[in-house]
């Protein structure tokens, strides 16, 4: 008598036994799923690490684990002693600069815009939000061709600001939406109260809006950083000299090489990956808070 509908509070003794068995089976399946997920997620990363610690030339062997692991490749990158990584630290600095500026500008511009549209409720604010969506009509990749030509015209090729401009352009609409949504859960009364107290809009923005938006800002900031460090095409097209390149472009350069320096390339990639991974893990918890509407505060 496994009744599916019952009055509340009724105890169904037969179900208890099955229920425990089902709970075990479910748990077992979950563990199996967990194992599969770990292998799935980690395998390419394991490959990266394996290639990086193998001595040069060993990458072509048929072993599935590194037989003679060595950190030599990492040292070569850190010392800049291999000619492709001669300017590694400068290029790393370029990537950092690009990431930091992208985060800063995206946060600034998106928060200002969403404040004006969502809080001050500027007339015809919908034009802006729709315009933001229009940014995505033509994907970033497609726009790279005219973008490159235009930057050429302005003499901005080989200038990191061209890349920053493109990244901010494509990160901001998404950021605006996150801010609008998150801001919807912040009561308007706070703004109102401040206005009544004589605060100017910029003070409301600075004193009330930004502090309350902190979780969303963290989420968007992390997203913008990861976006810029995940991005490749614009950096590749717009930056070409040793001193102006970012690490992403420098990595692609290895592919031209005749020497198959894959271990050094992967060592470079792993050093490059450490920052985004660290940032993500530092801000993980804030991120999920920022991505929700900020409220199941009932």
């Amino acid at each position, binding site marked *: 008598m496994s009744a599916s509908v*019952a009055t*509340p509070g009724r105890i169904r003794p037969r179900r208890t036994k099955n229920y425990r068995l089902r709970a075990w089976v479910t748990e077992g399946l979950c563990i199996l799923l967990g194992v599969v*997920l770990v292998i799935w*997620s*980690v*395998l*390419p*990363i394991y*490959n*990266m690490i394996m290639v990086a610690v193998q001595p040069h030339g060993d*990458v072509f062997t048929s072993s*599935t684990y590194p037989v003679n692991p060595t950190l030599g490749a990492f040292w070569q990158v850190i010392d800049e002693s291999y000619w492709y990584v001669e300017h590694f630290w400068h290029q790393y600095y370029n990537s950092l600069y690009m990431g930091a500026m992208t985060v800063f500008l995206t946060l*600034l511009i*998106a928060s*200002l*815009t969403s404040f*004006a549209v969502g809080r001050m409720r*500027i007339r015809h604010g919908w034009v*802006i*939000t*729709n*315009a*933001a969506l*229009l940014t995505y*009509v*033509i*994907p970033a*990749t*497609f726009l*790279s*061709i*005219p973008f490159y*030509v*235009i930057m050429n015209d302005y003499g901005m090729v080989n200038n990191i600001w061209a890349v920053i401009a493109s990244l901010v*352009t494509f990160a*901001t609409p998404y950021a605006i*939406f996150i801010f609008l*949504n998150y801001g*919807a*859960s912040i*009561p308007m*009364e706070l703004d109102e*109260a401040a206005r009544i107290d004589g605060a100017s*809009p*910029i003070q409301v923005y600075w004193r009330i809006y930004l502090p309350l938006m902190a979780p969303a800002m963290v989420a968007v900031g992390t997203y913008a950083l990861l976006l810029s460090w*995940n991005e*490749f*095409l614009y950096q590749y097209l717009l930056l070409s000299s040793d001193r102006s390149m970012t690490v*992403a472009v420098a*990595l692609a350069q290895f592919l031209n090489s005749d020497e198959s320096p894959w271990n050094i390339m*992967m060592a470079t*990639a792993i050093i490059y990956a450490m920052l985004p*991974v660290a940032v*993500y893990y530092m801000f993980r918890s804030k991120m999920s808070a920022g*991505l*929700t*509407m900020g*409220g*199941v505060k*009932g």
Partner: protein
Amino acid sequence: MDGMQGMQTAPALPQGAGTYTLPQHRRRLWRGGLHGTEYTWAVAFCIPYMAIFLAFVIYPVLYGLWMGHSPALYEQLWEDPIYRMSIVNTIIYLAVGVNVKLFFALLLSGFFMRKQLWVKGLLVIFVLPWAVPALPTFLSIHWMLNSQWGLLDNMLWNWFHIDGPQFLDTSRWLALGSVIVAYIWKWMPFWTVILLAGRMAIPQELYESAEVDGATGIRQFTHVTFPLLANLYLICTLLSTIFTMGDFTTVYFVSGGGPALTTNVLATLGIRDAYTVGQPDVGMAAVMTALPLLIPLVLILMRKMRTAEVQL
């Protein structure tokens, strides 16, 4: 303080996830519009974004439209069998890649709601593919799939003495499949986190009352979770399709468009035509042909986001 009464609290309510409308009295407050300096401020706040939009979206789009406007380019494209193949590839890439990825993201988001500590730890590992930058991971996958010394075929040979398949070398479909799997590997964590955030916003009371009514497991999913997530899921699908259409890095680094140019998608073909073959206007025309699909998607997205402010 007046205005405190009638303040609405949590906006996330059962009647459609995330529908939020301004309560009556608040609308009245702002209907007068902004006055004087406030208006100037508001406009000033919007200027940075509008400037960026005009300079870096409108201008390149117009320039791109101008570059790709000649019908002769489209004729030339149509005659090229590589172009026709890349349209098919793009459609398959979108239809299979986006949907499989989001479907699993949805299921996994349910899995990650579980309370055990190890599940939370697992989430940390699960997000690694997204956090690690794209280029090295796709290269790593490219090497893993190498049929002479790649990890996968090595594992198959060393452990099972099977001569593994040549993932990327000769078969267009196998290569395309590999690219799609790589794509799902990279982006599924991101969407899982988004859907997970959406799930976490669903109030616990709903589940509890459903449990009382006798719904468990799958029933809970279909009657409580999915209706509330549906809108979010749809928006994720639209957004993901738009993003994926422009995905260059995956195909370029995993299969390189090979074997013999047969796994190119519109994005990689456009770049190839523009820079390798040296005809930027043909490249632009190639990517323009994606517009008939993109524009309706964006219009639907605009509609969806206007009528219901939704969690992203």
